[in-house]
């Protein structure tokens, strides 16, 4: 179990992350400059927290201010791939990989390097220097080097940010597979939501030095616990409302435009709330069918703008004005995959009814 609970001031910035994770791929996600990389440095032993505790997988306490423990980086057994990779430019791929095996007997060292070379597909590259390799090859050498001394924890700081999209996708899959195969805890820093979603088992949402929420990926994406988290994971539709009734796990929430049923077990059961709905969770109701499920909330809308994003279309749909009349219009952002978009003929018709299902709406408190 990896446990991080630290506190460190760097100038006016206050880093105070708190989370734990098991043997899984943990994605640290948040905007640039929110403290994700500093957290990795603290775990690696390159940044000393002012206070707190870091326990590495396997039960080794790397840092504990109360017990006056602060292991140097050399004794933490942590593999660290930094954003700029920092392959030693004056060494070959082999020498880079071997660097962390200085104390090993020659034979074991040779076997280990041979294993890593085949694991990461680096055959024929062993005698090359970093500048003679492509970005993806350098990436693999950096991974092999970090894994060489059998670390208990792997730290990856936006390792693919300099690569082209197809290569990134491939390396992401490789890293995820590698981690499973080695049964290793890994912390992966990214500010790319798509990458966070594609990779993570467990996701940790950072903002301004703090961890706002962490848990299994789908929980965090579908059930943000605060407005800020909802914004960071691009929920897009965040609507102010009020809980007017609650029974058996289903809240009834009233907004000026509609009243929705929400089945969110962890939701607030009364008071002011925000409804959070992801753009891909809003249903476009076909004309020839009624939305028969009585649990669904159906709203009349009009498409006022749309953006084609390759395999999906994002529609901006304005809800019909409520009787009472409010100042600001309510505009839903709805993602429709290319195929239904064509089948439904959305391009030629502007007025549609949309449906919100009770399971796909979550609630966060509103002050």
């Amino acid at each position, binding site marked *: 179990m990896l446990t991080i609970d630290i506190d460190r001031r760097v100038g006016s910035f206050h880093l105070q992350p708190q989370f734990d994770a098991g043997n899984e791929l943990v994605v640290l996600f948040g905007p640039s400059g929110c403290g994700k990389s500093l957290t990795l*440095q603290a775990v*690696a032993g*390159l940044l000393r927290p002012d206070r707190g505790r870091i326990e590495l997988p396997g039960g080794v306490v790397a840092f504990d201010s109360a017990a006056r423990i602060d292991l140097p*980086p*050399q004794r933490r057994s942590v593999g*660290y791939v930094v954003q*700029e990779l*920092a392959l030693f430019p*004056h060494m070959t791929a082999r020498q880079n990989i071997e*660097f962390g095996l200085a104390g090993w007997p020659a034979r074991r060292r040779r076997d280990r390097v041979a294993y890593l070379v085949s694991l990461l597909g680096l055959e024929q590259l062993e005698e090359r220097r970093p500048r003679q390799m492509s970005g993806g090859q350098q990436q693999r050498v950096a991974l092999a080097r970090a894994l060489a001394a059998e670390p208990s924890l792997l730290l990856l700081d936006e390792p693919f940010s300099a690569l082209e999209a197809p290569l990134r996708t491939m390396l992401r899959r490789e890293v995820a597979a590698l981690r499973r195969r080695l049964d290793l805890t890994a912390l992966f820093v990214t500010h790319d939501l798509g990458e966070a979603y594609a990779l993570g088992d467990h996701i940790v949402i950072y903002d301004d030095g703090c961890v706002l929420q962490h848990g299994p990926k789908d929980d965090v994406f579908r059930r943000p616990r605060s407005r800020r988290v909802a914004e960071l994971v691009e929920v897009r539709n965040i609507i102010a409302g009020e809980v007017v009734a609650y029974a058996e796990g289903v809240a009834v929430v009233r907004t000026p435009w509609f009243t929705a049923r929400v089945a969110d077990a962890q939701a607030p059961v009364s008071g002011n709330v925000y409804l959070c709905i992801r753009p891909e969770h809003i249903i476009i109701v076909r004309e020839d069918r009624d939305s028969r499920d009585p649990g669904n909330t159906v709203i009349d809308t009009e498409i006022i703008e749309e953006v084609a994003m390759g395999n999906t279309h994002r529609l901006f749909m304005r809800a019909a004005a409520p009787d009472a009349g409010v100042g600001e219009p309510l505009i839903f952002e709805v993602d429709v995959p290319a195929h239904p978009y064509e089948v439904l003929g959305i391009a030629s018709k502007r007025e549609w009814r949309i449906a919100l299902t009770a399971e796909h709406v979550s609630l966060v408190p509103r002050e």
Partner: protein
Amino acid sequence: MAAPGRMSARIGLGWLFAPPALLFVAFLGVPVGALVWRAAAGGELGDNITSSLVLDSLRLSAITSTVTLAVAVMIGTPLAYLLARRDFPGKVFVDLLLDLPIVLPPTVAGVALLVALGRRGVVGERLDSAGINIAFTTTAVVLAQLFVSAPFYIRTVKAGFESVEPVYEGVASTLGASPLRTFLRVTLPLAWPSLVAGAILCWARALSELGATLIFAGNLQGSTRTMPLAIISAFESGKSIDVPIALSVILVAAAALLLLLLRVLARGAAMRV
């Protein structure tokens, strides 16, 4: 280093800027050429070079400048590293102190050394009562050279260490390398071109040292008369201009060789990285 390439050739200005450029090349080239020509035409270059005045000063210069370089590397490398990587109280002051010998006239350095380490000097007086005398010895020559030339080494090497991203050292330490191993296997090789450049600058400066040596070490053949001093002495004796010419040609050849070596080593280092 990238060649300027075709694009700048298309932009022009060549004809406009060539005349002043050529003028200055001639200004540097003609005296050096004249020196070599006179040395060769005199026909007595061989005799002059083997005279005891020349040989003694040549040997003394070679020994003192090499010892100076060795000392500068041994004490200057750690200092350069600390200046590049650590913050410590008085760092600004140390930085300033290192620049002083570079901008000061070397004669001032000579006077300062004499005031400190001369027989009546602040420190020298105590050394003298302990039976140690430094001024006007070969040791004084080395100290005078060290004073004016080591800052060149330290400056250059400090910049070299600064250009090595600390992230390399961080990664090395997570890979289990001790601080000393990280320094020797990572930092030092990456800063190597700067160490070579600094060493050559330092050696060249030590070799040409005159003012500080004259004041602090004197001008005694065999023990403190280095080549630049020998040139002055030969002039002042007024006998012949052939001896100064022979000495000068040797220094020009040594300097040219050093510069060539610098180029070759710098390119070699760049190729390795």
